[in-house]
């Protein structure tokens, strides 16, 4: 029973990582850049939802929608101001710019909203739970919602990339930008769209994350950001099912390692597993191995 409990918590945490990892993986797939500011977009989304719900007493759903709207705009603005001028530059330059954006968001949040931790109101009361097996196993409603949201997002995204015109344009751009442009696809708009979707997902992930962990500070997003990035690599960066698989595995491993081995070494174990996986499958679990050509 204890194991099952850990497993469910792991899947719940993993679902959050998976949603964040989707943002990383989509942006990487299309723009070939590591968007280090993604974790901080999560934080901004959480703050927006926090203020909407706590300060302005708006319903939770409105708070989440508002957070998604603000994050979408933020994602597109960041892309347009900071990354677009560097489209032709090397990936390291873009990486450093992304780090600059990350610093900027964190410090702006600290300036605007102070670094005092905020107590985040959960989307459903934390006490709500379902008891199974005569009360031996209790699953909180929040956990179920988190997992359900993750599944819905995955299905929607699979449909979007597979069936819609914009989704197909995205896949075309990630295959070959020049060829996509020749086929009449507006590459710049497609990239902006990718950032918009990734950032909207980040807002949802932020709300779920803060509902589970209660506290909200300007650096809330950085560690989950790094972990989700790891999850994206774990599953094979650029692959959407890979992000889901990587996120879930990472969450489960993290909770199990914390439960059975040591909470102090939790992160070390997660990263050690990542290293072992990459040594066996150098392109991640579901990543495509690219053969070198001379």
């Amino acid at each position, binding site marked *: 029973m204890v194991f099952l409990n850990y497993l469910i918590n792991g899947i719940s945490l993993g679902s959050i990582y998976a949603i964040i990892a989707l943002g990383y993986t989509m942006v990487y797939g299309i723009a070939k850049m590591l968007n280090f500011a993604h974790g901080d977009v999560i934080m901004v989304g959480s703050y927006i939802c926090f203020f909407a719900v706590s300060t302005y007493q708006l319903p939770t759903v409105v708070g989440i929608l508002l957070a998604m709207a603000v994050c979408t705009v933020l994602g597109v603005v960041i892309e347009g101001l900071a990354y677009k001028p560097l489209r032709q530059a090397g990936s390291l330059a873009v990486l450093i710019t992304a780090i600059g954006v990350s610093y900027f968001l964190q410090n702006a949040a*600290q300036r605007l909203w102070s670094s005092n931790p905020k107590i985040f109101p959960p989307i459903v009361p934390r006490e709500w739970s379902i008891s199974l097996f005569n009360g031996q196993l209790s699953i909180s409603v929040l956990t179920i919602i988190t997992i359900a949201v993750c599944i819905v997002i995955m299905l929607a995204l699979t449909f979007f990339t597979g069936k819609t015109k914009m989704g197909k344009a995205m896949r075309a751009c990630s295959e070959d930008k020049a060829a996509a442009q020749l086929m009449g696809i507006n590459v710049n708009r497609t990239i902006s769209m990718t950032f918009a979707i990734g950032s909207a997902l980040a807002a949802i992930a932020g709300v779920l994350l803060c509902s589970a962990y209660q506290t909200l500070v300007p650096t809330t997003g950085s560690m989950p950001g790094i972990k989700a990035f790891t999850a994206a690599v774990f599953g094979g960066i650029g692959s959407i099912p890979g992000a889901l698989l990587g996120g879930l595995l990472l969450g489960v491993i993290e909770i199990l390692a914390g439960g059975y081995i040591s909470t102090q070494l939790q992160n070390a174990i997660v990263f050690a597993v990542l290293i072992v996986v990459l040594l066996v499958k150098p392109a991640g679990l579901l990543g495509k191995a690219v053969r070198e050509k001379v």
Partner: protein
Amino acid sequence: MKKLRQMKRSTRSRVFTYALVIVAFVVIQLLRTFKDGGVGSVLEGQLIPICAYIVMALALNLVVGISGELSLGHAGFMSIGAFAGSAFAIALQGSVTLSPLRLALAMVFGAIVAAVLGFLISVPVLRLNGDYLAIVTLAFGEIIKSIVTNIYLAVDGRGLHFSFLNDTIELADGGVELIKGPMGVMNTQRISSFVAGFVLVLIALTVIFNLVNSRTGRAIMAARDNRIAAESVGISVTKYKMIAFVVSAALAGAAGTLYGLSQTTFVATKFDFNTSILILVFVVLGGLGNMWGSVIAAAALTILPEALRQFSELRMLVYAIVLILVMIATNNPTIRGFFGRIGDKFRRRAPEEKGGAVQ
């Protein structure tokens, strides 16, 4: 002047780098000796960290700029160097009384420990490439941080005591705790000095320039520019990348010792992902493979947050904006072309082709 112009480009850059470091050192030392208030209390306190970060930037530049592999975990080597070196220095406190000698021994020890670790890490890391290699170095940095946070080390009459996760050491009388888990290291004596930092920077420059301008260095750069071509002419790519990685780890370890012994207390979480990124920022801003660029960027960006103190809370915001603007200004083709044309007017000579660096 004519002689200077006839030099090879790489030689000129080397002479310039040495001159830059030595002149900066002499000026700062003169100010500290003859001017009231020296170089100001802010800069005074930053002198040794600046030296440590310069060496870190040079070490990382060897990996990122010369060897062409992105490392996101270099703070891990700094951490190992800081902890190993400081523990060694505290343990030697009784036997070696001359503090510069003790510092030198500690740095050598820190460098060796970091180099051994660098070797062990490079075996799995260098099997990967590109972003996957970067994420593995990030993972190693985080693992080193987690492990060092949980190490307890002490020494007494009966020898060395070690415990992991929980402090189970029972010390005899006169025993000294060297590393105290999450509490880090407490230095009773801060034996690092600016002169030692300056010497370490010179050593790092000498090591790197000699490595780069040797047969080995050319092999490393060949492996960077075209792995397959290098392999086909008989260069063992893994071996040469490993040499660069281990040398870099050793220098980072020595820099860590220098930094650690300049602080009264420090903890393992100081050397986290953000520190690794900070050093990468120095390297990229200074220019990949450009050593004097690394020196200037490391020094300037270490002072900048202190110099912006008058903006108090806004300073990190300004820092972030400066970082973004500099990256855009130096990498956007339009802006670069504009500055390039201005530069050409002054130089009259067409700009030489820049030393190839990875993108």
